[in-house]
């Protein structure tokens, strides 16, 4: 079985973002970029399934400018077999991304698609669900455990009240939550080997998908800054402040 893993290049999660003064977006010039943390978990899960003998090939795909090839190489160094770069300079919405991925699914015929539950830049949490809808597949979102058996996959999902397990018919879409696994680090020999693994580039407009979005960003602003607080010296002072000044207890 082949596993398809869509990955995204995003700002490194440790970077404190700055909003541009002209309110058009977030300043990404000279900012450290990385593989989205949830995508890393997705790659790791796919590689583990391959190591366990449940999968034969792991294909990673990313959509964006040529810079995304850096993250595809990272995924290859983590154990993916080959990569596909869908080239576009446009900033696509989840819906356009899902439509492109649906075409890739039609070409590649994977038995399982694993992707991150959300990208830490747009915080949308949509692509996996949309891809499942467009391909008619079942979806196991926010997965903390994935178990394959003949023609089925059992996915334990992190839900608000606890955990829920669902069983899906393959092919299916799984989106990863943080606790699914602990991603490995790429070793130096693997990084070198990854440079020789196949990486195919295709133009986004060659897929015949309309890439225009109905959503426009009017402005991006910094969140309201909290007023600087005070330090109290003792528990008694804290309780007194909460009772009489803040009046919250």
């Amino acid at each position, binding site marked *: 079985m082949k596993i398809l893993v869509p990955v995204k290049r995003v700002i490194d999660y440790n970077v404190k973002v700055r909003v541009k003064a002209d309110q058009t977006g977030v300043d990404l010039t000279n900012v450290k970029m990385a593989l989205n943390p949830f995508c890393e978990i997705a790659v790791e899960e796919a590689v583990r399934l391959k190591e366990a003998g449940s999968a034969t090939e792991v294909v990673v795909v990313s959509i964006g400018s040529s810079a995304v090839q850096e993250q595809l190489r990272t995924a290859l160094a983590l154990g993916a077999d080959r990569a596909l770069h869908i080239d576009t300079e446009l900033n696509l919405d989840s819906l356009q991304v899902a439509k492109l991925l649906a075409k890739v699914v039609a070409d590649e015929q994977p038995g399982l698609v694993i992707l991150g539950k959300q990208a830490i830049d747009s915080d949308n949490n949509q692509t996996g669900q949309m891809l499942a809808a467009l391909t008619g597949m079942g979806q196991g979102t926010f997965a903390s455990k994935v178990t394959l058996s003949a023609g089925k996959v059992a996915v334990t999902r992190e839900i608000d009240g606890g955990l829920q397990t669902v069983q899906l018919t393959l092919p299916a879409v799984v989106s990863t939550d*943080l606790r699914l696994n602990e991603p490995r680090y790429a070793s130096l020999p693997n990084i070198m080997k990854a440079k020789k693994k196949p990486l195919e580039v295709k133009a986004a407009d060659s897929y015949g998908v309309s890439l225009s979005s109905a959503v426009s960003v009017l402005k991006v*602003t910094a969140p309201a800054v909290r007023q600087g607080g005070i330090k109290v010296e003792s528990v008694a002072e804290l309780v007194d402040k*909460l009772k009489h000044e803040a009046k919250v207890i």
Partner: protein
Amino acid sequence: MAILLIAEHNNQSLKAETHKVVQAATAIGADITVLVAGFNCAAAANEAATIAGVDKVLVADNAAYEHQLAENIAALVAELGKNYSHILTAATTTGKNFLPRVAALLDVAQISDVIAIESADTFVRPIYAGNAIATVKSADAIKVLTVRPAAFAAAKIGNAAPVEALSAVHDLGVSAFVSAELTKSERPELTAARVVISGGRGMQNGENFALLNGIADKLGAAIGASRAAVDAGFVPNDMQVGQTGKIVAPELYIAVGISGAIQHLAGMKDSKVIVAINKDAEAPIFQVADYGLVADLFTVLPELEQQL
């Protein structure tokens, strides 16, 4: 214009988030139809009819909807949704699961985690873990939105909207419910609590979380945790507050032994009053805390419990 709002419920009763989404929907200014899809869910439907602002309640009562499987719910909502200008639900794990599927079936975008409604087509939402706020305008014929419950007050009770049964059944047959393991708690729900007290890595182990119990009982508070505490196995993951956990905005948030990483702040920085208890005076949590106490939590917590 008309709004279809999908209720969050456990088949017996509505979740508090639903009332907040109704409040958000009233800002759009159109008739509000609430859909209750579940199994043996008449009680939840009747409860929805009592929320002020609701014009009609639709009930889809079928075993196919019992566990809110995204595949089946999305097919139902996409079919009904064609006749509405807006489709809304809460940005809970249930809403986040099925609503993007609905949007894709209708071939429209989804706007996630809306924190303010400026007009019928313009919405405000946080991006980059809440470090930037985007105002977006949608030209789609149907606006599909998940609403962040913590950003809206609950709609009042006092209504008797008509309840109508639906007969449509959608069962895609590609997914099946196996089991659920729900965390049992006597305390208020994290996302609805007026006071939240959270522990982090500084708690050192799961047993020490018991130190928070007495304080939570006295304040009627819910207990939360940082990702560090969850990853270390101190507490279950549904207690996690942050970008990848729950978003809360209580009147009082007490952070104990939490350093205040960006990802944690994303889940609680809209709280009205923030108290930080940490022995590291340089911890970033003090930059957002209204009241900070630099001290060892193991001496402070028993003292705090006593003085409340």
